[in-house]
C-alpha cells in the first residue's frame, strides 16, 4: 500500500490544528480508510487527549523511532472507529530529540501500511515544523478569519513551497456567520483572495467542538454537530468527491429540531 502523507499545519498556534487532525482523520477512517494520525508536537502531546486515547499510551513516537519498540506496538487503535490509529508524541522529550531523516523514514514506513498518514504539526516554523513537513507529500493549512492567523498561514505557504510541498489546501476554521454578516469578520472570499490557495473546507465556530473535545470524542462522530458535518465534507473532498460547501447561515428551524431530537447519533 502506498498511502498519502499529509501534514496539517498553520504557523500560528491555537487555530484548531489538533482538532482538525482528529476530526478529519476520524471521518476518513469512518469512510473505511486505514488512517494513522501522528502527533508530531514532541513535548506538547495533545492529539491523544482530543481523541480520548490518553489512557492507552504505552509507547510513543520516540520509542518507535529509537527502536525501543516496534512501530505497530506504539500505534493505538481507536475503539470506536476500528481503522483509526494514533502514534502519540513523546511528552518528556523536546522537539530536538528527532531528526528530519528519522521522521521521513517513519512516515514512509507508515505509508506502506496506511491509506492516510496525517501529521499534526507543532505551531511555529522551527525544527518541529521541519520534522513534521519533511515526510509529507501534501499539506492542509488551517487558519481562522483573523489577521494574525491569516498572516502566519501566508508565511507557511511560502515555507511549504521551499520544502517542495506545492498547492497546499486551505481550511478556514471557526467562521462566525453572524459576524461575517455584520462585516466584522473576514469572509471566505476575503481569505481566499488574500492567500490565493485552494479551499478544501470551512468549519463554523461551534460549541460542539468544545463539548466533544471535553468528552474525548471527535465531533464527526456526533451526527448533529455542524462542525462535525463540515469536517466530514472535508474528508469527502480529500477523497476526491465534489461536495457542496456547508451553508454558513445561522442554524435554521429544522436544524434545531434535529439537534433537539439528537438525530444521527
Amino acid at each position, binding site marked *: 500500500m502506498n498511502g498519502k502523507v499529509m501534514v496539517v499545519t498553520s504557523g500560528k498556534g491555537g487555530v484548531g490544528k489538533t482538532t482538525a487532525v482528529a476530526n478529519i482523520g476520524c471521518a476518513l477512517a469512518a469512510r473505511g480508510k486505514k488512517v494513522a494520525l501522528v502527533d508530531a508536537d514532541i513535548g506538547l502531546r495533545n492529539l491523544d487527549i482530543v481523541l480520548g486515547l490518553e489512557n492507552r499510551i504505552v509507547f510513543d513516537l520516540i520509542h518507535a523511532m529509537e527502536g525501543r519498540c516496534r512501530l505497530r506496538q506504539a500505534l493505538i487503535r481507536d475503539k470506536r472507529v476500528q481503522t483509526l490509529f494514533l502514534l502519540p508524541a513523546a511528552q518528556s522529550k523536546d522537539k530536538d530529540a528527532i531528526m528530519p531523516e528519522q521522521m521521513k523514514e517513519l512516515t514512509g514506513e507508515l505509508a506502506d501500511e496506511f491509506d492516510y498518514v496525517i501529521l499534526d504539526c507543532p505551531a511555529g516554523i522551527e525544527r518541529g515544523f521541519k520534522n513534521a513537513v519533511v515526510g509529507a507529500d501534501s499539506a492542509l493549512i488551517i487558519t481562522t478569519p483573523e*489577521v494574525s492567523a491569516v*498572516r502566519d498561514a*501566508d*508565511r507557511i505557504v511560502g515555507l511549504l513551497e521551499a520544502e517542495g510541498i506545492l498547492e497546499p489546501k486551505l481550511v478556514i476554521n471557526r467562521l462566525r456567520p453572524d459576524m*461575517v454578516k455584520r*462585516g*466584522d469578520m*473576514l469572509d471566505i472570499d476575503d481569505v481566499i483572495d*488574500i492567500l*490565493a490557495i485552494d479551499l478544501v473546507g470551512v468549519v463554523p465556530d461551534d460549541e460542539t467542538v468544545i463539548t466533544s473535545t471535553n468528552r474525548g470524542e471527535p465531533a464527526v462522530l456526533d451526527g448533529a454537530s455542524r462542525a462535525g458535518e463540515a469536517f466530514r465534507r472535508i474528508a469527502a473532498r480529500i477523497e476526491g468527491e465534489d461536495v457542496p460547501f456547508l451553508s454558513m447561515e445561522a442554524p435554521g428551524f429544522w436544524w434545531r429540531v434535529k439537534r433537539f431530537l439528537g438525530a444521527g447519533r
Partner: protein
Amino acid sequence: MVFEFMSRILGRKNRLGSKDLAKERLKLVLAHDRVSISPQMLERLRRDLASACAKYVDIDEAGMNIRFDSSDRSLALIASVPVIGSKQSTHTSKKRRGKSG
C-alpha cells in the same frame, strides 16, 4: 456634516465594517512579508528611484511614497512620485502626481 448626520440616522449601513480594515492591513503587511526586503534595502530602492526620476523631471522627494502590493501571490511595486515640473519646459508651479506600477 449633513451626510454624516443622514448616514447616522439611516443606521450603520455606510459604516465600514472592521473586516475591510482587516483586509487592507493584511494585504499591505503580506506584500511586505512576501518580498522580505529590509527597511535599509527599501530606503536604498527609494533613493535610487528618486535619483533616476530626477534625471528627467523635477520631483518632490519628500512627498514620495513607495509600497508593495500583492494579488494572487504576485507582487507589484507601487511608487508615487510627485512631479513638480519637467526639466525641459520649466514651469514649476503645478504639482502633479505620477504613478508607476
